[in-house]
């Protein structure tokens, strides 16, 4: 009997965490009002099961940035939130604003069908830094959905800001499992044929041959993750989640020629080579499979 339960848990986990499951964060930002609560914004973020959601709420006197992550376990899910908040607490003697920064973590376990209510500015009437003075602070309703998807899909975001005077943002945070890197050799006004290559971070180096003006250049390239961010805020909010680094070396030399780091945003980054050519690398999300 125990073996059967254990097996069913393992099977459920494997089914949930497989590439076929898609996770959706559905949110509504709600402000309390005299008659009925008012929806200020609504939206959804979806992606693979390891997708995170970054939520930013700003008012004149407070800013809250939070990164939400889920860890599924059977019919329940653990929702974790890394909060980074700034509150305006007054003015300096020279009349400049003074801000108080705070970082903390919240963890809660809920069923998939439950609604989580997030109070980004605190639950109390006194602590409401949401610009409402003594009023009760706004809250965010979050519903987590999971559904079967045919294969690994890209992240998607949809956000509808009902009250345009508010500064709210919603972002999907996905750490790329692979990246498409397009390599070119450039010299003056001559560019080699683009050489697209799909790379997986931390996989063994690959040999690439680029030809410019009939001259072949062989390079060994590998994809790595960047070093951990220096600031606690960048680490907590995973601001470098979609940054990858391309390590470029010559085949016979262990010392790299250089490393190019960048986001998967189709922007070419250049690395001068000892041959006088310049290697241009463009990072992008991989195509559909």
């Amino acid at each position: 009997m125990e073996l059967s339960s254990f097996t069913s848990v393992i099977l459920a986990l494997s089914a949930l965490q497989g590439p076929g499951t898609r996770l959706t964060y559905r949110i509504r930002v709600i402000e309390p009002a005299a008659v009925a609560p008012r929806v200020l914004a609504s939206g959804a973020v979806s992606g693979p099961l390891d997708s995170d959601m970054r939520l930013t709420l700003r008012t004149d006197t407070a800013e809250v940035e939070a990164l939400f992550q889920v860890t599924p376990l059977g019919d329940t899910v653990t929702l974790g939130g890394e909060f980074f908040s700034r509150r305006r607490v007054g003015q300096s003697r020279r009349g400049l604003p003074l801000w108080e920064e705070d970082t903390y973590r919240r963890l809660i376990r809920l069923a998939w069908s439950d609604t989580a209510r997030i109070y980004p500015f605190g639950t109390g009437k006194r602590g409401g830094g949401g610009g409402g003075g003594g009023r009760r602070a706004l809250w965010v309703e979050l519903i987590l959905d999971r559904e079967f998807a045919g294969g690994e899909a890209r992240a998607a975001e949809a956000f509808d800001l009902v009250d345009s005077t508010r500064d709210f943002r919603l972002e999907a945070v996905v750490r790329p499992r692979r990246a498409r890197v397009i390599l070119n050799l450039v010299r003056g006004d001559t560019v080699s044929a683009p050489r697209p290559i799909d790379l997986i971070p931390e996989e063994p180096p690959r040999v690439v041959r680029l030809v410019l003006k009939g001259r072949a250049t062989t390079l060994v390239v590998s994809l790595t993750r960047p070093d951990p961010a220096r600031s606690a805020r960048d680490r907590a909010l995973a601001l470098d989640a979609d940054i990858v680094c391309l390590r470029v070396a010559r085949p016979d030399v262990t010392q790299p020629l250089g490393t190019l780091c960048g986001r998967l945003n189709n922007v070419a980054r250049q690395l001068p080579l000892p041959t006088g050519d310049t290697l241009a690398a463009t990072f992008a999300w991989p195509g559909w499979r």
Partner: protein
Amino acid sequence: MTGADTSHEQWLVQIDAELDGELSLVERAALAKHLVTCAHCAGARASQLEVRVALARSAGNPHAFVVPRPAIRAGTLALWVALALATGVLAGWVADRRWGGPGGGATLEESRGAIVVH
């Protein structure tokens, strides 16, 4: 104020100075002559003397020639200064905890975000 009143006030000052031993012989002689003719000033001098006797008695020395001045010992003074400083520092610390610095009001935990299952 009339000229007579002004001169009377001056005689009262002179009486005070005489009892403190601050008058010269000439001034004392002039004052004595005036006291013979002025019953009011003589009464004022007697009152002044009675007050000084009372002060000397309260200081524990009824046979003193002059009013004994209150003596403050160095240790007592240092103790009071230290006590005043400590009270000031303590009051400042309490006021700073209660009202000092920006960001007062709600506690830190009240100002932090929270997640609840609804």
